[in-house]
């Protein structure tokens, strides 16, 4: 039996048609909820789109929300490629951002060309360590990374909460002292006045560069090859002389380090200090971002934009509908996307099949 690469197997179909259908359908279902609260969905959606995409301030806000999602999504995707489910991006990014702030406040006056790389490295180191722990436990003891990353999320939240309120805080606040000004990342509105007021900054560029690096690593290097083999078939990896445990640890460290870069957006580009509760769900949204982006680095940019838009859009339509509705919409997108591979794929395949069959019969 010959099996040719059919249109259904193509990466275009997998990467674009299926997730796009899922997103469109979820907006349709979201419309029902908007109707239920007694509003006109067309009106709500048109405000949502025009306020986020229709002017440069909105776009700036959207991009600011997009940046951390790219890091979190990449973090989850790298681990996913290695067959690991990293629920711990949240903890990793908290530790990374916190360490960025601490190193930043201790290195006042260091020239920017040292300070900026140093702070980025601090973020990566913090996240990387937080990824190393579950990776090592998995590789050496076989402890499941899902449980351990969840537990480490609790630990990081509590630990940082303690440190930010008791040890490193500016008195009477829950944030750290400011970082060295030489560690500030350029905001886009400093060059393009049109972005005036939105905090989108160079961190976005760092995110895009990270996307390219991750793609290169996974697609072009021998370590990326090993990572994929371990993720797809650990027994074949072992057979091929690839150390599965080393790849497990390595990919968790890389994933953690990427999550740790989230600090660059918030600490180095926006507030210039670490603030308790700056991010509560970015790491978890990263899972949805990675899924919708099909774990493809470039797909993650697109899905981050969508979730960034929903996040900022939630603030925009807050006056029209309860803000919970946006959470519902986000949740619907996630549910549809997660089930899309099975369900929509089958539906679309059946549609195409029927058409093909008709064509064959007409021949």
């Amino acid at each position, binding site marked *: 039996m010959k099996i040719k690469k059919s249109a259904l197997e193509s990466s275009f179909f997998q990467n674009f048609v299926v997730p796009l259908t899922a997103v469109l359908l979820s907006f349709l279902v979201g419309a029902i909820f908007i109707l239920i609260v007694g509003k006109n969905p067309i009106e709500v959606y048109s405000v949502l789109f025009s306020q986020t995409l229709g002017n440069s301030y909105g776009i700036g806000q959207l991009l600011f929300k997009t940046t951390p999602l790219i890091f979190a999504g990449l973090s989850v995707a790298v681990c996913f490629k290695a067959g690991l489910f990293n629920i711990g991006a949240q903890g990793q990014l908290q530790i990374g951002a916190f360490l960025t702030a601490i190193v930043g406040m201790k290195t006042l006056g260091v020239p920017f060309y040292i300070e900026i790389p140093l702070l980025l490295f601090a973020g990566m180191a913090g996240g990387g360590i937080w990824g190393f722990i579950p990776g090592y436990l998995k590789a050496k003891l076989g402890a499941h990374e899902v449980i351990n990353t969840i537990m480490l999320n609790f630990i990081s939240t509590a630990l940082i909460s303690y440190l930010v309120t008791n040890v490193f805080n500016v008195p009477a606040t829950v944030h750290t002292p400011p970082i060295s000004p030489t560690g500030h990342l350029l905001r886009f509105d400093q060059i393009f006045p049109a972005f005036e007021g939105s905090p989108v900054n160079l961190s976005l560029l760092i995110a895009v560069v990270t996307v390219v690096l991750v793609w290169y690593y996974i697609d072009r290097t*021998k370590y990326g090859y090993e990572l994929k083999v371990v993720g797809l078939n650990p027994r074949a990896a072992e057979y091929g002389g690839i150390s599965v445990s080393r790849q497990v640890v390595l990919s968790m460290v890389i994933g953690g380090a990427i999550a740790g870069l989230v600090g660059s957006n918030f600490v180095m580009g926006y507030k210039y200090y670490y603030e308790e509760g700056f991010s509560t769900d970015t790491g978890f949204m990263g899972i949805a971002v990675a899924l919708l982006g099909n774990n493809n680095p470039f797909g993650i940019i697109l899905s981050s934009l969508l979730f960034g838009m929903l996040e900022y859009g939630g603030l925009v339509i807050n006056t029209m509908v309860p803000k919970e509705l946006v959470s519902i919409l986000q949740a619907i997108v996630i549910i549809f996307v997660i089930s899309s591979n099975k369900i929509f794929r089958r539906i679309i395949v059946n549609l195409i099949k029927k058409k093909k069959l008709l064509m064959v019969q007409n021949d």
Partner: protein
Amino acid sequence: MKYAVELLNITKRFARTVANDNVTLRVESGVIHALVGENGAGKTTLMETLYGLYQPDEGKIRVNEREVRIRSPYDSIRLGIGMVHQHFMLVPPLSILENIVLGAEHVRNCILDLKRNKDEIYELSQRFSLKVPLDEKIENVGVGVQQRVEILKALYRKADILILDEPTAVLTPKETSELFDILRQLRSEGKTIILITHKLNEVMEVSDRITVMRKGKNVGELKTNDTSPSEIAQLMVGRPVLLQVDKTSKQPGKPALKISNLNFVDKRGLKILKNISLEVRHGEILGIAGVEGNGQSQLIECVAGLLTPSSGSIEINGVETIGLNARQVFENGLAHVPEDRIKRGLVIDLSIKENLILGLHTNPRFSSWLKLKRSVIDQNASNLIEKYDIRPAQPNLQVRGLSGGNQQKVIIARELSRDAELIIASQPTRGVDIGGIEFIHRTLIAARDNDKGVLLVSADLNEILSLSDRIAVMFEGEIVKLFPNNQVRESELGLYMTGSMRKNDNRTENEDQEVSA
């Protein structure tokens, strides 16, 4: 002459392939009818259409001379058709009795009345001499018994037409001949049997009529008494096939692999390998025969650096390899065709070209310190695809999309491209069709003629007998017999394989005990 089953002009298409192309198959009542063909010839699809698992796109089905429509297995069971699938459909933790009655339980006042079932099944098993321990759990019985359970299951549902899909694939020679006795018994009771297989000796032994399929078409109807294996093989493959492997005699050289007193104890503390000593010399094929699960897999994994033995020594090309990891063993001159190609040998979601460098990806030929050399990898893929005739010849295609035979060719191509001195081939032709088998056999012989040492492990005795220069038999983790040549009868091998005969030299056994004590 009465027909039990008539499949008339059946066509069944899948997305882009035509699995059955205008196939007509007539099966006389009360005969054993063999349906033969290579993998992917459409045999199973045709039978699953008859069983109601698929709907034909075109064509008619007649059962007992009446046109019928079979929408699901429920319909086919009512028509008296039973099917024993290649992979058994049994529930391991349930008893044999429970498995047989599943879905056909007698119920009295909402309470199961298995006693009644049991009596009926007991009677049935007596009548067809299908002896099974009804109260034993499926997970505790061997595959031979499981198969009898499947047959009983079909008979209990009053099947008159029994379809068996590759029934001997997992059986030992003894179990196979028992199965054939059962089939003959069923035939004498008037049952009709359709046997899907690609083993020609079995077709010759047990069938009355033969239908040969190739590429979805019926290419020949034969009477078993009027044909020969080579005629069937030619119809199956579409060209003359050499069933006998041509092999010149050859003087073996120094050992490529030397195993001494190897022991392996698994995690549960079971002794899997007991004091194994073996040599594979350059220029010879050493065949290891044995029923699966007698330690062959662990022996191979120890040699390949995938398992660490408890004691003993393994030398490949004169270098001790215990303690080396899989990559280091490869680098020491090993090529390894693993027994389970899907689980071990391939990453089926990666492309052909990516699979062709598995384990070679750190070789400076294919990568620098960081980057994969993509043009070299592409070149390597197109060379090997051409040399080993891997189809379809698309280096970027996922291996998942290849037939079993072509998947195996990917592994063989990769492993022989290592140019290693020692080649381990474990079940190299399992699930591979005749054309592919011939090719793989020739490749292994060519390697031997090239002075490589070849260690062959196979459950297929024909393969062992036709390829090996020497034959070792494994039983319960021991080498129970080493034949210095391949002049052995299959039945004799069978006796050693099943433990009915152990080392006939008592002194050797005593010595062994002393060593282990």
